[in-house]
């Protein structure tokens, strides 16, 4: 799991072992990793959510029968890892039906949840249906900040859900999205995880897409904050040893080489949005000129192998300099297309996280602004923090989902 590339809400890309290594664009391997974003509905309003800011203007959710067909078609191609996410997947009352079908098909099923809506009865039903794994998100170690960052009162409820997950024999896996407002609490977060009997803790620094992009100036930590958090994590690891596995994911903005996003778009990962839009990455909706196919119109085989959108970033022909002639292009595939678009306006550019990118200063400038604000956590940088919200989302103009700031 050390090679994971979490984005936002604890959602991780497949690790390197998952990549079949067929990157010539002519013979892509199967979509081994399937993510179903079952709904954009969510009881939380997290400021770092990676969901598109115009989610409220997307189409109606797929019906149960559509999801079951997607599962069958993807499994027939070789898909085996299944993530169920959202929004909050528990908001779908057919979640148990979807899990049961996925289990019968042989998927390994991971529920990525805030825990809201997970009671004893549903837990039993999901377990009976064959759910393999649950990843529970927490916003902070304290009720105050958890509730503030998600704009709800959920801390006690989440703690109960954590106990429920353990009682039902699942590994206790916590995901906490880190950013400027909670990263100084890393020690307390880890102690909370230990009290809850967590087996795995993912400390995933916010990646800047969707709502997190809107709130970037509030959320980007300073380098000193990051280094302190890493030091605290190291000490904690030494103390607890093997009892608890901790994954600390450094934010892209502090790196000098980009992540191998999704092991290359169209390589192993297939995400389906609530309205049936098929995406080579869960943020790909924002990319301009990418005519994303819909599972209502086409089967998964056609979408994966034949659609222009899924072939768009396969291979290396789309790359520009400096990627095109870079010896590392087969290692990182030029980084994240969404980040390239958000920061440079062109998704074919190198991910500007890379210090070889002519736009790298756009990343370092954002980090420099965070440094300037160090020690002034409460000071709002111009625009107020925007909570993920249905009414706000309705007001976001379609076609401008990223709202490049």
């Amino acid at each position, binding site marked *: 799991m050390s090679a994971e590339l979490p984005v936002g809400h604890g959602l991780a890309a*497949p690790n390197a072992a998952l990549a079949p290594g067929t990157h010539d664009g002519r013979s892509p391997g199967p979509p081994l990793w399937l993510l179903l974003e079952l709904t954009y509905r969510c009881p939380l309003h997290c400021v770092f959510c990676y969901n598109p800011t115009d989610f409220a203007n997307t189409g109606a959710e797929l019906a149960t029968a559509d999801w079951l067909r997607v599962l069958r078609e993807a499994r027939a191609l070789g898909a085996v890892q299944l993530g169920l996410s959202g929004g909050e997947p528990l908001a779908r009352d057919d979640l148990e039906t979807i899990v049961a079908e996925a289990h019968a098909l042989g998927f390994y099923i991971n529920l990525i949840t805030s825990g809201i809506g997970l009671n004893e009865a549903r837990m039993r039903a999901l377990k009976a249906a064959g759910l393999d794994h649950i990843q529970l998100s927490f916003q902070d170690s304290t009720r105050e900040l958890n509730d503030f960052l998600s704009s709800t009162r959920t801390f006690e409820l989440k703690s109960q859900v954590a106990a429920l997950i353990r009682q039902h024999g699942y590994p206790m896996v916590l995901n906490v999205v880190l950013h400027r407002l909670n990263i100084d609490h890393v020690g307390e977060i880890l102690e909370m995880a230990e009290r809850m009997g967590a087996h795995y803790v993912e400390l995933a620094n916010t990646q800047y897409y969707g709502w997190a992009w809107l709130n970037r100036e509030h959320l980007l930590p300073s380098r000193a904050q990051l280094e302190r958090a890493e030091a605290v994590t190291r000490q904690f690891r030494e103390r607890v040893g093997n009892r608890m596995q901790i994954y600390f994911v450094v934010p892209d903005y502090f790196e000098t080489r980009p992540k191998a996003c999704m092991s290359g778009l169209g390589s192993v990962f297939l995400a389906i949005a609530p309205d049936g839009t098929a995406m080579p990455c869960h943020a790909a909706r924002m990319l301009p000129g990418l005519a994303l196919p819909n599972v209502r119109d086409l089967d998964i085989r056609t979408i994966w192998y034949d659609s222009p959108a899924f072939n768009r970033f396969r291979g290396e022909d789309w790359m520009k300099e400096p990627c095109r002639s870079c010896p590392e292009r087969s290692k990182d595939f030029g980084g994240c297309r969404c980040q390239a678009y958000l920061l440079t306006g062109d998704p074919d550019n190198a991910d500007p996280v890379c210090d070889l990118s002519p736009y790298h200063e756009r990343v370092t400038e954002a980090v420099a602004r965070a440094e300037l604000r160090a020690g002034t956590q409460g000071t709002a940088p111009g625009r107020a923090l925007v909570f993920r919200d249905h009414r706000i989302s309705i007001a976001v103009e379609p076609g401008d989902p990223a709202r490049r700031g």
Partner: protein
Amino acid sequence: MSELAPTVKPAIAHGMRLQFEAAQDAHVLLYPEGMVKLNGSAGAILSRCDGVRTLADIVADLERSYGATGLGADVSAFVALALERRWLELRE
């Protein structure tokens, strides 16, 4: 690390799943947000780790199945590695 007693009973670790994937023509080990594609011998060893058979049983079964002898050290070393990576756990 590789000093495993022949009486230990390795099992696929909690939360992991081993299965054969026709699309990849290989055994794979599935865990949250990841997958390890196993080569033939790793698949042959792990598919025998059921928490019931001892390490000695597993070695004997492999030697029988593959018409080989002297596999003990290799199998033991792989089981130790798999334990370290938490693919396996020991049952009493």
